[in-house]
């Protein structure tokens, strides 16, 4: 039994023109059994910073709580929101602290940095950062996601088109993976608003 495939997950983030989109599936399973169809994998850190966590669900929840804790203290001390790059460095440091007993998650971080420039990155479970200019993927459906994103992605898409692209990429990829799916949860973030949508795909 592979521990990273125990619960099943799919997370993807894409860069658009002064905006970004981050999406995940909604299935929570215990190996072959589906337990929930509304599991939150993506969470907001602040209005211009989101983190999606794939992997073991208990670590997803705990890691999210720890990161929110750190960010809240940072906000109080420094009287400002964390920049996405800074947050990514923080996540990497927190994951590496547990180098020999790691959190079994792969984070996907997406945010708008200075001048509303979109920033995305992913890292492995011990904090090795991977920055990308177009898209990042993680989870049990990651191989299908890589293929779908590579085929469908275009640079400088506006928010509407970005939403369509990321939704199609997500749904087609999770359909090829039995451990992820049961719909999708998409956030499209522009400098002025956050659009949240639930997708209905193959409910299996």
């Amino acid at each position, binding site marked *: 039994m592979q521990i990273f495939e125990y619960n099943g997950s799919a997370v993807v983030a894409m860069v658009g023109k002064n905006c970004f989109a981050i999406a995940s599936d909604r299935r929570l399973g215990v190996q072959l059994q589906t337990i929930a169809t509304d599991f939150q994998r993506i969470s907001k850190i602040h209005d211009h910073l989101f983190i999606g966590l794939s992997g073991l669900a208990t670590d997803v929840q705990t890691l999210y709580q720890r990161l929110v804790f750190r960010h809240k203290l940072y906000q109080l*001390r*420094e009287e400002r929101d964390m920049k996405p*790059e*800074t947050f990514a460095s*923080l996540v990497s*440091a927190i994951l590496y602290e547990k180098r020999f007993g790691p959190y079994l998650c792969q984070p996907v971080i997406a945010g708008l940095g200075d001048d509303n420039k979109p920033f995305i990155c992913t890292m492995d479970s011990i904090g090795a950062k991977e920055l990308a200019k177009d898209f990042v993927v993680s989870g049990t459906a990651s191989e299908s996601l890589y293929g779908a994103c590579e085929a469908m992605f275009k640079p400088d898409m506006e928010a509407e088109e970005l939403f369509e692209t990321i939704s199609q990429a997500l749904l087609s990829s999770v359909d090829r993976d039995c451990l992820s799916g049961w719909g999708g949860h998409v956030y499209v973030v522009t400098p002025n608003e956050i659009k949240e949508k639930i997708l209905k795909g193959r409910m299996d």
Partner: protein
Amino acid sequence: MGDSQYSFSLTTFSPSGKLVQIEHALTAVGSGQTSLGLKASNGVVIATEKKLLSILVDEASVQKIQHLTPNIGTVYSGMGPDFRVLVRKSRKQAEQYLRLYKEPIPVTQLVRETATVMQEFTQSGGVRPFGVSLLVAGYDDKGPQLYQVDPSGSYFSWKASAMGKNVSNAKTFLEKRYTEDMELDDAIHTAILTLKEGFEGEISSKNIEIGKIGADKVFRVLTPAEIDDYLAEVE
């Protein structure tokens, strides 16, 4: 370090509500060599007297103004050895912040952490407060900043301030001369004039030290040649 007679805090409250050790520490600061700082519209300057014990001392080896990070510098009045310890601790804290966030530490955060260290030494057993007040000059995203940190651990942001022997004359002079829209070079001239006010003997590039930081966000200690240029302009 295990003797029970000494494992109590020297900073226990007096009946009048003061911490006597901190008062004494401030006295130590007040009898130290004068140092001062000015915040200009486009930078910060800090300066200090550098009176050496004898003419035999190699003045090039004495550096009172120190970097904490590439864009934050500091100077002190009071006990030199205590200053060295604080500089070491502050530099470590700045590097830890950089390592964690991959972002240079904001001036306010570094000042706060240094002040926390100084406060800890007023509330622990078997230690004494630091006998220095620091002037911290930095330039970050919030612009030029000048902070003073006292032995008690309290810190203040100043437009212009002085510490040490000549503090009251220096502050009066600064109050008269300081303007908000001063540029960095004007501020350096004003700093030199303020130091001259209470200077015993002839002021020269060998017995003062000046550090500055401008919009380039690089803190530099001026060379004696540069100080000579500014002194000539002031004459």
